[in-house]
């Protein structure tokens, strides 16, 4: 027979292990350090969702735990006999429903924000291949593959994402950008990186044998450095 206390100890142990591992984990990337306006918005929305749904989650788990600890069968103590309560049932239908309506608001505004590609400073075409990425800068006539994408810091970059063969997905977590690369279609997304650095991602849609090796690297450089780099590329370096 399992009694309440070992169950409680197990729970405590599990919580302690998870907390220790969480503390030891690497930086939480976009979650702690978003680098684009969209990533900021996504994080804000996620925090709102956590706050609004977290209460229900914690309440349910606590009530469950209390019930398990409190209502163990004891000789001479009969079970209660209640089996419905209309007011309670209306309440636990209505309150979550209202909460979700509240959550729908920021979801819609964030969706609209990330979906509306603003007037861009630079367009890049991202084309998925089995198993590498091709990048084109149509405004500069520059095309290359298997090299990092280079974009200027602070500029709005519009990305037109497509594929030459199977479905891929261009995914850089720090940017809050994931866009499927469908053959026969062009999808539009955008990002504006706030600081320089190298950001990594990888293909997010199973695309065959070497799906796991289809990495993405984006180098974000100052606008001046970008001009120098693109001139060099145009000359065919």
């Amino acid at each position: 027979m399992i009694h309440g206390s070992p169950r409680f100890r197990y729970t405590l142990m599990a919580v302690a292990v998870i907390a220790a591992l969480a503390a030891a984990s690497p930086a939480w990337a976009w979650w702690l350090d978003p680098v684009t306006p969209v990533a900021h918005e996504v994080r804000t929305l996620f925090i709102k969702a956590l706050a609004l749904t977290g209460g229900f989650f914690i309440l349910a788990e606590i009530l469950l735990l209390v019930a398990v600890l409190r209502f163990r069968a004891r000789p001479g103590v009969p079970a209660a006999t209640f089996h419905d309560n209309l007011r309670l049932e209306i309440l636990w239908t209505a309150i979550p429903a209202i909460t979700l309506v509240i959550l729908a608001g920021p979801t819609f505004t964030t969706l609209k924000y990330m979906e509306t590609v603003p007037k861009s400073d630079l367009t890049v075409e991202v084309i998925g291949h089995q198993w590498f990425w091709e990048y084109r800068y149509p405004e500069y006539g520059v095309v290359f593959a298997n090299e990092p994408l280079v974009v200027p810091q602070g500029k709005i970059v519009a990305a037109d994402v497509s594929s030459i063969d199977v479905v891929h997905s261009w995914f850089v977590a720090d940017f809050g950008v994931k866009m499927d690369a469908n053959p026969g279609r062009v999808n539009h997304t955008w990002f504006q990186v706030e600081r320089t650095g190298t950001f990594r991602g990888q293909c997010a849609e199973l695309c065959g044998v070497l799906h796991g090796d289809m990495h993405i690297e984006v180098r974000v450089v100052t606008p001046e450095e970008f001009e120098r780099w693109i001139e060099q590329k145009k000359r065919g370096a």
Partner: protein
Amino acid sequence: MNAGTMSGGPHAQSMTGAHRKPRTGISKWLFTTDHKLIGVMYIWLGFFFFAVGGLFALLLRTQLAGPGLQVLNPELYNQLMSLHGTFMIFFFTIPILAGLGNYIVPIQIGARDMAFPRVNAVSFWLLIPAGLMMISSMFLQGGAAAGGWTSYPPLSDRQYSPGPGVDLWILGLHLAGLSSILGAINFVVTVTNLRAPGMTLWKLPMFCWTVLITQCIILFATPVLAGALTMLLTDRLFGTAFFLPSAGGDPVLWQHLFWFYSHPAVYIMVLPGMGMISQVLPVFASKRLFGYKGLVLSTAGIGFIGFLVWGHHMFSTGLDPSLRFFFSLASMVIAVPTGVKIWSWIATIWGGSLRFRTPMLYAIGFVALFVIGGATGVWLALVPFDVQVHDTYFVVAHLHYVLFGGSLMAIFAGLYYWFPKISGRLYNEKLGQAHFWLTFVGMNITFMPMHFVGILGMPRRIYTYPAQYTSWNQVATLGSYVLGVGMLLFFVNMLWSLWKGRRAPEDPWKHVDATTTLEWTVTSPPPAENFATLPVIR
């Protein structure tokens, strides 16, 4: 066939006396139309594929125990990953629920058999060639299908998957789907027509309600999958181009059709489990189920809304934003009836007199874990957050909290609960409880870290990963071994108890009047045709 009558007909009478020694002859199993024997065969088949799919999962987790390991090569990794999903969904969860439904539902409604016993046998036996096709494809040139259980074209088209693996995968799913559809017709007709006198719909046990609603979902959803599979097959073999962009087709069409089936499929796998939980919790709390009508209505609600949310699997596909907002809202709405269930279950055990036997532990474990899967499900309904974590390990974590923490925990709850009834023997309670704790703890060690690596940006379905994800993956792999040990205990317990377990009385759980159902009024196992005289429900 005497569809509308209560009698099982001559084929069932020929079974009389055979039920007590089911192993006396192979032909008893081969030619049976007895819903109980068919149910038992479904359960065996389910656990065979559970073991195979589970071993695949352990191999996948071993490959992922560190970055750059070479336990499996990428080709094999993708095949085992695809078959793991396919087996667990189509050859374990769905059949085993059909098996438990087959065994229990006719008895619970006071019937002597299913409405169409021969069709019932056909439904089961279709799964054997289906499973053989899946397994044999691994040994043919090019290996098994390797496009995941979702098999998106163009990757699954002939140009990118040239071997016979995908063709066999399609044909195997076709047979499994046909089996499901035939079974669905059978269940719906059985529950609507063969209820004992006085068994009105509002007296139907919760498990029967959830099976009825689930089978309606199968009836509406599975033919759509069959259509999509046929289109994919003709694309591959006969030169059509439904999904081929080079000839004017559209791969996104597959995604719509596939998810139109596969999201409702989640409820096909979860709702009967919720029915079993709604049955087990009251029994071991010695207290009537709280909010019976609310639970029935919320089940129907989930079943209906489940058809309006498939687009949430496609938020990064490039769908129109207003369409995405609709799918987002509809997906959030699912949380309301799900919440009704969770609160009702907590209210059911509140104030009860709880006995923590293995089925009860699994039922409580189900509620605890399903709440986690439900919460992450709400987050995933929010398009911007979903886009961020779509196709990462976050989704893998979410779906395992729903299907492992949900469906599988419920299946174990139901299986331990009905084991004495089905086998006529008692299982070992200590081993059962050890199995529960290893499963509950191992499950969390395995799948909780996947939330974190997913949020960090680790995509799913990759055979190796960048070094920054190592620590969490090691934890997950460790957890999967804990699960493996737990499942070993489960199989040992079940097989040993089948062979040497103590004989089970009619009602080993000592149901109180408020929680008992008809199967506990007959012997364990029940006699052929279940009832000497049909029960009358007052």
